[in-house]
C-alpha cells in the first residue's frame, strides 16, 4: 500500500523555522520550542539496508557538512566490522575532515556572520549579506571566498568530489592520496593560513565594539561536551567525549563511543519532533549542555597546533574560561579554522600520508557499532545495530543541532519570557530570536539564510493549543 509522508512547512527546504511558545494556565510562558528539520526519517528508511551503504546514505542528510556524516557513519561501520583501520586511512580521513572544517567555518563566518559583524546588526537587511560585505569590504569578502574554496578544493583533491564524495568507506578510504595532489594542497596552504590570521586580527579589532551583544546574547551558563585526546587536546576525528560543567570542572568522560547512551539521554519533547538530548547524570531537563565551537574551546585544554594555541590563550583572556556568551561562537570558529589549516599541514607532511595501505576489509564481527566525531557544529553520533547478515536493524543519529536543542529552546524561552505579554508577542521579539538562533548556527539557519535573514515564524499557543498570536518575517 502506498504511504504518504507529509512534511509540513516547517521543513528547512522551504527555509522556515517555526517556534511554538506555549502558555500555562496562568497565562505565562510555559515552554518554547524551536522546530528543526528532522533526521528521524533516515533512521526509519535505512532499516534493512546493508550497513556499508550507510555512509553515503546518511551523508545526504546535509549538503553543508556531508563529510561529517560520512565519517561518523564510516566509524560506526568500522566498529561493526571490528577493524582498526590502517594508520594512513585515519590520517586521510582526518585530513578530509579538517578541510571540511575550514570550508564550513569559512562559510559560517564570512557568509553568515560577517554581514552582521561588519555592516552592523541594525543595517538594512536587504544589504546585510555577503554581497553587501563585498561592496563595503571587498578584501574581506574575497578572503572569505578564497578560504572556502581552499577547503572545498582540498576535499575535491582528496575525495574526487566537493559535495558528496564516496571516498570514505567502511574500513578506511577508497583510494590513496597522490603525491602531486598532496603537493598542490600544501602549495595553497600558506595563503589559507594568512587569510585566517588576517581575519582573526580584524575580528579582534572590532570585538570591543560588540560589548552589548556579548553581554546580551544568550549567555546562560551550561555544561559543554566535546572530543578530546588523552592529553586533553582538541580533536575532531577521534578521542574521548568529555563533559565539563558551567564552571569548567570535569563532569564525565568516556573513551568508548558505545558508551554514549550511559551519558546522553534523549527526551521526547511534547509538540516537537526533535528529541532533546540531555546529560543523564543531571537528569532532564537540568542536563542541558552545548556542543560546537564554543564548547570545544571550553572543553579542550589546547588546540594542539601552535598558532591556534596562541590565539586560544588570548581568547581565554578576553572571553573567560569557560566562555559563555554565544557571541563567542564567531571568535571560536575563526580559531578553529586556523587549527584546521595548521592541522592539515601537519597531516600532509606525515610520513605515512601517501601510503597505499588504506583499507581494512572484514565482514560483520559485531552486531552494534557507534561512531562519534566532531562536526563543525558539534558532536555527531551515529549508532547502528545490524543483524548477522549486516542489514541495519536500528539506527540512531544524534546531530549537533540536536545536542543544542535544549539550550536553544532555553534561550528562546528566555527571550519569550521578556517579550510575551498577555496573549501578544511584542515588537522586537523576532529580531532577538533570529540572533539567538543564528548564533548556534543550526543546520536550518545555515541552509536558509546564506543571503539574508532566516525565515522565522513564531506562534503563541494557549494551554489548549489555540493560536493566540503569530509573527513572521
Amino acid at each position, binding site marked *: 500500500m502506498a504511504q504518504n509522508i507529509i512534511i509540513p512547512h516547517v521543513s528547512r527546504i522551504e527555509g522556515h523555522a517555526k517556534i511554538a511558545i506555549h502558555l500555562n494556565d496562568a497565562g505565562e510562558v510555559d515552554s518554547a520550542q524551536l522546530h528543526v528539520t528532522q533526521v528521524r526519517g533516515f533512521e526509519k528508511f535505512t532499516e534493512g539496508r*546493508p550497513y556499508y*551503504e550507510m555512509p*553515503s*546514505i546518511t551523508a545526504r542528510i546535509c549538503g553543508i557538512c556531508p563529510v561529517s556524516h560520512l565519517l561518523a557513519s564510516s566509524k560506526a561501520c568500522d566498529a561493526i566490522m571490528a577493524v582498526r583501520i590502517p594508520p594512513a586511512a585515519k590520517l586521510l580521513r582526518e585530513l578530509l575532515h579538517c578541510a571540511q572544517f575550514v570550508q564550513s567555518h569559512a562559510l559560517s563566518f564570512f557568509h553568515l556572520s560577517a554581514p552582521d559583524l561588519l555592516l552592523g546588526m541594525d543595517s538594512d537587511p536587504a544589504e546585510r549579506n555577503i554581497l553587501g560585505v563585498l561592496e563595503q569590504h571587498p578584501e574581506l569578502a574575497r578572503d572569505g571566498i578564497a578560504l572556502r574554496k581552499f577547503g572545498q578544493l582540498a576535499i575535491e583533491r582528496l575525495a574526487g568530489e566537493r559535495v558528496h564524495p564516496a571516498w570514505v568507506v*567502511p574500513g578506511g578510504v577508497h583510494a590513496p592520496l597522490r603525491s602531486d595532489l598532496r603537493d598542490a594542497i600544501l602549495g595553497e596552504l600558506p595563503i589559507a593560513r594568512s587569510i585566517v590570521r588576517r581575519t582573526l586580527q580584524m575580528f579582534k579589532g572590532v570585538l570591543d565594539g560588540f560589548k552589548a551583544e556579548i553581554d546580551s546574547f544568550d549567555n546562560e551558563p551550561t555544561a559543554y561536551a566535546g572530543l578530546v585526546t588523552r592529553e586533553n587536546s582538541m580533536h575532531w576525528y577521534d578521542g574521548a567525549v568529555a563533559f565539563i560543567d558551567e564552571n569548567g570542572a570535569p563532569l564525565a568522560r568516556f573513551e568508548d563511543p558505545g558508551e554514549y547512551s550511559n551519558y546522553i539521554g534523549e527526551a521526547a519533547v511534547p509538540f516537537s519532533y526533535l528529541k532533546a538530548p540531555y546529560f543523564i547524570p543531571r537528569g532532564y531537563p537540568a542536563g542541558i549542555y552545548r556542543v560546537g565551537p564554543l564548547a570545544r574551546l571550553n572543553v579542550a585544554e589546547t588546540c594542539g597546533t601552535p598558532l591556534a594555541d596562541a590565539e586560544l590563550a588570548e581568547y581565554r583572556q578576553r572571553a573567560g574560561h569557560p566562555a559563555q556568551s554565544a557571541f563567542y561562537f564567531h571568535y571560536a570558529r575563526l580559531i578553529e579554522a586556523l587549527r584546521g589549516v595548521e592541522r592539515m599541514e601537519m597531516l600532509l607532511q606525515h610520513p605515512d600520508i601517501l601510503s597505499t595501505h588504506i583499507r581494512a*576489509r572484514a565482514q560483520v564481527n559485531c552486531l552494534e557499532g557507534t561512531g562519534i566525531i566532531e562536526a563543525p557544529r558539534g558532536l555527531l553520533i551515529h549508532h547502528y545495530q545490524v543483524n548477522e547478515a549486516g*542489514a541495519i536493524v536500528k539506527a540512531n543519529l544524534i546531530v549537533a543541532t540536536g545536542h543544542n536543542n535544549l539550550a536553544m529552546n532555553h534561550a528562546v524561552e528566555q527571550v519569550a519570557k521578556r517579550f510575551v505579554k498577555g496573549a501578544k508577542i511584542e515588537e522586537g521579539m523576532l529580531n532577538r530570536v533570529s540572533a539567538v538562533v543564528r548564533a548556534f548556527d543550526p543546520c536550518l539557519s545555515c541552509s536558509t539564510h546564506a543571503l539574508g535573514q532566516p525565515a522565522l515564524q513564531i506562534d503563541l499557543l494557549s494551554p489548549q493549543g489555540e493560536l493566540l498570536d503569530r509573527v513572521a518575517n
Partner: protein
Amino acid sequence: MPNMISLRIDGELVRVEEGHTIFQAAEAAGKQIPGLCQMKGLSPVGACRLCVVELAGVNRLLPSCTTPAQEGMSVTTQSARIKSYRRMIVELLLAERNHICAVCVSNNHCELQALAMKLGVTHVRYTYAYRSFPVDTSHPRFVLDHNRCIVCTRCVRVCAEMEGAHVWDVMGRGVGSRLVCELNRSWGQASSCTGCGKCVQVCPTGALAEKGCAVEEMIKRGQSISRLAETRGGVL
C-alpha cells in the same frame, strides 16, 4: 557450409548465417542496439523490450533479440518512434522500483543508468510506485537488493545455463514479478548456490552486488562471462 541470408539494416545490405537474430545481424554489421536483458553468451528472452526495431511491412515494433533475421527483411534500428518507446521503457523501469543512483553501489557503472543517460532521460514522467522491497543480505559474499532489480533474468539464465545450478527464478506476474532464490528462500540458505558469483557479474544494475562494496564501487565484469561462454562454445 551454413546457409547465408541477406537483409537490409538501416538501409545497409547485411549478410549473415541463417538462424541469427536481428540483434546479432545488426551487431555483425557494427550497429549498436541497446538491450538490458540481452547478453552475449546467454540465451535470448526478450524480457526488457529495449531492443525493439521496426520491420518494413509490420506495424508493431519487434524485439530484435528474439526475432530471427530472414531473407529480404528491411529493418530500422533507430527512429524517433523507437527512441520514444525505449525512453518510455527506461522510465517505467525506474518508476517501478526504487533507484537512487547517488547512493547505489553501481552508480557510474550501471547499464540502466548509462542507457537512461544515452536516451536523454532527464526526468521520469510516470508516478513512482515507491513500493517497499526487501534487501537480501543473507549470503555471506553477495547481496540482492530488489529495489534495483529490473527482472531482466540475466542472473537466472547465467546460473542455469552456465553454472548449471539454477538457483534463481522469477515468481509472480507482470509488475508483481520478482526474482526468487530456489523456492523462495533467502539466498544464504540456498543449498544449490555454488557461490560462483556469475549472477553478480552479469547483473546490469546494482541489484546484485558483492558484499561490502560501498557506493560506486561495484564494477561488473560481464564481458568475461561472455568470453567464457564463447570459449565453451555456448550460445553466441
